[in-house]
């Protein structure tokens, strides 16, 4: 479904992503784990088209997309739920959700999606008229994912959803991601919380310093000595 081939990203002269290749299959749940500054967000920004790679190719459903504008990529069903949630602070919860459906012309689809999101995150339904900035961190993360779902994505790119959330709320968000994936939406998750990421996904990559150092099924990865030491604290 999604294929990255030898992607490199430079900021000014500095190389932040050093030629990585990565794959997400239809309906797959893939995690990329790695420490701060590893280049995880940069990779997602390349996929969603907000930055251009200095080298390499991105393919989505047998179409090359790495020079397309972000709105063209979003229209193809790749939706990026950004790091730090980035809820529109002065828009209401409902308006934030409507922004997710900005490219969705089909009104009945939007209605159906909205119902699904309220079913998934009932708390949002009670907050529709509140401003985004007034939500708690956990609610904002749910809204961020809900906003992504409003676009009717085939592939969700989710960047560090557990950031700053309590274990309990993280657990809840994690469960909902599993539900979303079971409904057929592929997920590429980026996480520093390796424990959670490896539990949720089928396959994983380890990114350090702009390089993919390990990849495999999550079942393999959790048994890996290095990962156990460096990321799981075992």
């Amino acid at each position, binding site marked *: 479904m999604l294929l990255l081939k030898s992607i490199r990203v430079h900021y000014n002269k500095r190389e932040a992503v050093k030629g990585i290749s990565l794959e997400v299959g239809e309906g797959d749940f893939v995690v990329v784990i790695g420490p701060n500054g590893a280049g995880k967000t940069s990779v997602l920004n390349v996929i969603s088209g*907000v930055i251009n790679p200095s080298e390499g190719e991105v393919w989505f459903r047998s179409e090359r997309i790495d020079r397309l504008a972000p709105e063209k990529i979003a229209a193809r069903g790749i939706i990026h739920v950004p790091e730090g949630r980035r809820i529109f602070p002065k828009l209401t919860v409902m308006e934030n959700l409507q922004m997710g459906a900005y490219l969705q012309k089909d009104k009945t689809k939007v209605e159906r999606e909205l119902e699904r999101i309220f079913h998934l995150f009932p708390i949002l339904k009670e907050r529709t008229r509140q401003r985004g900035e007034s939500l708690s961190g956990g609610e904002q993360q749910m809204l961020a994912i809900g906003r992504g779902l409003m676009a009717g994505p085939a592939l969700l790119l989710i960047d560090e959803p557990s950031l700053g959330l309590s274990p309990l709320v993280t657990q809840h968000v994690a469960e909902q991601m599993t539900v979303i994936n079971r409904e057929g939406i592929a997920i590429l998750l980026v996480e520093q919380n390796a424990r959670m990421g490896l539990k949720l996904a089928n396959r994983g990559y380890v990114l350090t310093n702009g390089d993919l150092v390990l990849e495999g099924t999550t079942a393999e990865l959790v048994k890996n000595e290095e990962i156990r030491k460096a990321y799981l604290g075992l």
Partner: protein
Amino acid sequence: MPPVAVWMDGLLLSSIYILIASGLVLVFSIMGIVNFAHGQLYMLGAFLIYYMFARAGINYFVSLIITAVAIGLLGIAIERGLLRPLAPNGLLPPVVVTLGLIFLFEGIATLFFGPAKKAVPSAVPGVSSIGALTVSNEKLVVVAIAVAVMIGLYFLVSHTRMGLAMRASAQDPYTASLYGVRRGRTLSQTMFIGCALAGIAASLMAPLYFVDPWIGLTPLIMALLAIVIGGLGSVLGAVVGGALLGFSGTFLIYYLGPWSELTAFLIVIAVLLLRPEGIFGRPRA
């Protein structure tokens, strides 16, 4: 209490300040740029109305719409041609560019239209009586159109997909782009609407005052004052600030004559001393 006619004039002046200030504040709130040439766009709009309506005899309302669209398009040209290419270079370039445009537009107007004051005839002659009060139809039409335009602006910004995209993009352009908002198009739409408002204000005002190349300065200053009083960055603030200035201005002229402008300025200073963030602004954290 000042006589009713003075209230009517206050309403009239307020309408114009509000139209100009809300165009300016719209552009500021979405794009983060104060367009110092906003008053000169108003001035060019007044000349357009003069040539179309007073000289060519085109229907007033048709002239008004053409003027609004033409000034809106000029706004897009300024945004695409000057502001956008300079955007990566910080806050100062847009200030310098829009200040420079003041001289450019005033120069062009003087060169092509001449420095002489020009009069635009009344668009809607006659008077109406409302109870004991007699008002010129012209003034009623100005106020009615201004109110309708402001309601339309409110609807556009807060209840349409385009308005939602404009607000979202102003708050977080990165995230808005992830959901398909094209920043460039949003900037053009904003500039078009903001400048078209100056064109509408000019069309409404031209038959009541005269037209010359220098009529842009006062409206700009008044609009800036209205925005600052109201609380920078909010259209509602611009409305309240515009009304405050419009009414206090006419009352002061009525009571104080030549001292009125100085006193209006003192009012602004008083408001800012009491509430530095403006009436509707939020205190900075």
